[in-house]
């Protein structure tokens, strides 16, 4: 079999980004995925760090933090590259590393991220005097009255109006936002007609669940051009159409760039010669197959995706290369008494530690493999959910590993 310049293992945001970045540098790339990655869980926004100015806060992090291994340049380049890929798929993102842009969540709080899909950018709501919150008859998981109750805490002195529109979704099984987004793709007119009937003016905002199609902003464009008021999508319970749009944008780029994508490919182990990884072994129903590579990028995720596993307490494992895994030892360090505790959860800091080329290191800091790079949620040493850094770390570590 032909040797790939780069093999990327993992079909989440980090894996896609690594494959795209490597392909953009004219490398031959094979992407091996298994399962659906964690994009269906994603809010759609790319979180970089929980700080007013993420860029500055990241600069002040300790040297052990994954962002410090990645470096400011890769972070910057990755952000630009990400915006290029999404823009090409008509999925424009707004924001930059020095800003935090609010989006409205499905419970009516505001969530702040450095990069958000244009369809969710809620910064303009501040200038509106009337806010419509639109429920769709039969659509699950979107409760206008709860959203209004909580949103009122952020937007005082506005008029809120809950409305329910009928898109004829009722009558079958439960309808999720993802179902509605799929049904409305290339079939936007019923929604546009219902929203037009609200007679909203440019002074008004219309908040809707994330149902504006699954392909970039195409459905949004069809609806928006017919309205005088701005429309804003919220986040939702999984599966997330915003995550699906990202997935599609990347798939489009990868296909165009000649990346070989092999789905349903479970990598069971690496092929190793001394400090060099020469390939990976994929297992399917009947046999095993070896894929040779000059460089391998591990983007299999953390506990959620099975990139790290824990059968017994204090014994986390990285199942493919059996890499050493950093973790906080003992029950008292593993988790906090409160689920939402205002501090990092120990278990979420579990992961692989690397050098500044993102190569795995052992506990003494010695590099284990010269051509294996670890990215995204596989990386340990920080609680990416608490820090709100998962998206930023995913795209920037992937970009760095692919272009190093």
């Amino acid at each position, binding site marked *: 079999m032909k040797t790939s310049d780069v093999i990327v293992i993992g079909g989440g945001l980090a894996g896609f980004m690594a494959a795209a970045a490597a392909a953009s540098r004219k490398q031959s790339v094979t992407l091996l995925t298994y399962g659906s990655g964690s994009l269906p869980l994603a809010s759609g926004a790319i979180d970089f760090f929980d*700080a*007013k100015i993420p860029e500055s806060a990241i600069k002040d992090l300790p040297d052990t933090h994954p962002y410090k291994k990645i470096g400011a340049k890769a972070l910057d380049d990755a952000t630009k590259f990400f915006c290029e890929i999404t823009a090409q798929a008509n999925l424009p993102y707004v924001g930059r590393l020095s800003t935090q842009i609010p989006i409205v969540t499905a*419970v009516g*709080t505001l969530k*702040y991220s450095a990069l958000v899909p244009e369809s969710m950018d809620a910064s303009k709501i501040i200038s509106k005097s009337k806010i419509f919150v639109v429920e769709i008859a*039969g659509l699950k998981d979107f*409760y206008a009255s709860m959203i209004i*109750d909580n949103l009122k805490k952020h937007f005082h002195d506005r008029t809120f109006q809950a409305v329910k529109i009928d898109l004829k979704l009722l009558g079958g099984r439960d309808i999720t936002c993802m179902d509605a987004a799929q049904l409305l793709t290339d079939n936007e007119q019923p929604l546009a007609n219902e929203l037009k009937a609200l007679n909203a003016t440019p002074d008004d905002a219309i908040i809707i669940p994330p149902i504006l199609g699954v392909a970039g902003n195409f459905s949004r464009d069809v609806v928006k051009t017919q309205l005088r008021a701005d429309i804003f999508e919220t986040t939702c319970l999984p599966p997330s159409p915003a995550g699906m749009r990202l997935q599609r944008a990347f798939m489009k780029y990868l296909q165009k760039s000649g990346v070989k994508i092999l789905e349903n490919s479970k990598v069971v182990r690496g092929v190793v010669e001394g400090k060099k990884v020469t390939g990976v072994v994929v297992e399917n129903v009947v046999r095993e197959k070896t894929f040779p590579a000059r460089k391998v990028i591990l983007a299999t995720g953390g506990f959620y995706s099975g990139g790290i596993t824990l059968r017994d307490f204090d014994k986390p494992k990285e199942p493919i290369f059996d890499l050493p895994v950093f973790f906080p030892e003992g029950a008292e360090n593993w988790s906090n008494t409160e689920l939402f505790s205002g501090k990092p959860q120990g*278990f979420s800091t579990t992961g692989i530690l690397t050098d500044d080329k993102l190569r795995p290191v052992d506990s003494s800091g010695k590099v284990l493999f010269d051509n294996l790079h670890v990215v995204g949620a596989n990386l340990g040493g920080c609680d990416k*959910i608490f820090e709100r850094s998962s998206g930023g770390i995913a795209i920037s570590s992937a970009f760095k590993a692919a272009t190093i």
Partner: protein
Amino acid sequence: MEKATVVVIGGGATGLGILRDLSMRGVKALLVEKNDLVNGASSRYHGLLHSGGRYAVKDQEAAKECIIENQIMRKIGKSCVEPCGGMFTRLDIDDPAYEELWVKGCADSGIEATPITLDEAFKLEPRLSRKRVKSAYLVPDAAVDGFRMAWQLIDSSKRYGGQLKTYTEVVGFDSVNGELRGVKVRNQFTGEVYEIGCDIAVNAAGGWAGFVGKLANVEIGVQPDKGTLIAFNQRITNHVVNRLHKSSDGDIFVPHGSITILGTSSMSVPDPEDTSTSREEVESLLKIGEETFEDLRDFRILRTFAGSRPLYIPPGGAVGRSASRGFAIVDHANDGLKGFFTIVGGKFTTYRLMAEKMCDQICAKLNNKTACRTAEEPLVEEVSDNDKARAKKFFPSYGTNLAATRLGVERFKKVVERLENDPESRQLVCECENVTRAEVEEICKSDTSFIVNDVRRRTRIGMGTCQGNFCALRAAAVFADMGVESTAKDSLIRMREFLQGRWKGIRPVLLGRTLRETEMTRSIYELSMNVTGGEPQ
């Protein structure tokens, strides 16, 4: 002033049993509970309807009570009992001499214990350790759902005029010349303190009985004894599987629907509120459990939980596992307070008998000659096949039966009507446990629903595979809309409180696939929902 003939203190199985019994005998009774109903040992236990086999050697009186009440419970609470049967297995490390004693003990107590061959045992329970199991017997154990039993007890009591108030804590007693006049209570949400007039008060506060006694200046020998249990997300056994040895920790497996509960430990604790669990307790239960089922660690653990048995310690008596599982009734007229009684000890399986004995004494004082009928009359009427058939058009038949028995005839009828008339009410709020929006709305409107966890206990939302990942948002939203109490309105607090309740039981078992679910919880509620509402710092 509000008045009742009898105030029952404590909303566990014993208190609810007393409320039902008194109401059926025509006594005006009011139950007060400081938390939600069945929030103590009556839901924090195995869910084992004892055959008595477990007590056949040590305490034959308890064993005899168990087998009799076991038969009664199957009859009056048919839909609360899963008649899965029980098996006692002796392992190679267990004392064969104990087996002989046990066989004799069962015979003497009237418990049918049928010896079976090992081949039969492995056929019935394929996961049993073939290396270790040396002998096996079948006994009439069963699984019982403490929650369902409680809701049915309430419905039955209400039918006879029984009343209850939750989140209402007793803070004192009012007496004149050593005779009880009333009970002072506090509303836990508003802080309002008021008095309920009564002739008799029954302290059925379980592990809390000692605290209630102190309010009346009487000493009560109750020792809270914490038991920790593990719920697995699969049905590992078909029967209740007991170790055939001297009763010890971690030696009972009870299957309930699609899950299995393993327990329990026994540890004296000063505070019955202590329902904490730890990794060490879980590890020690698993270690014992895998002696019987070698591949136990390959099953996903759903959560762990603990409850406090209210062990009765007569003056100078034994504590812990050696303490009697029997019960005691104390008339505090001898302590200088006429009209005040305490009932303490016992176990879930015999709650009805305890209630009967207590009510016999109360009725004697009241000169009420009505006989107890709680052993004959079923707790609730059966939901009609017709109503079930109507419901089955909208959700899976497995879910229909469960919903029917937890809702009862009248509420189920209302829910079915909603399902028929409003398609949106058919949405599943909880996919894991098949709970429709119509049912959640109906329960939100109940006068005992103050927080989302109250709705959880009645509907089972959030108790299944995903442990609230999806239904936390939905339930908080529906509750904010439908809840009658002002506590319903802050949806973010209710949502966090609900998830925190789930987290408590997940934390000590945070490994394997449970870890995966938790990463999902955090990803949804912290990243996609920003449920804490924080702004960038």
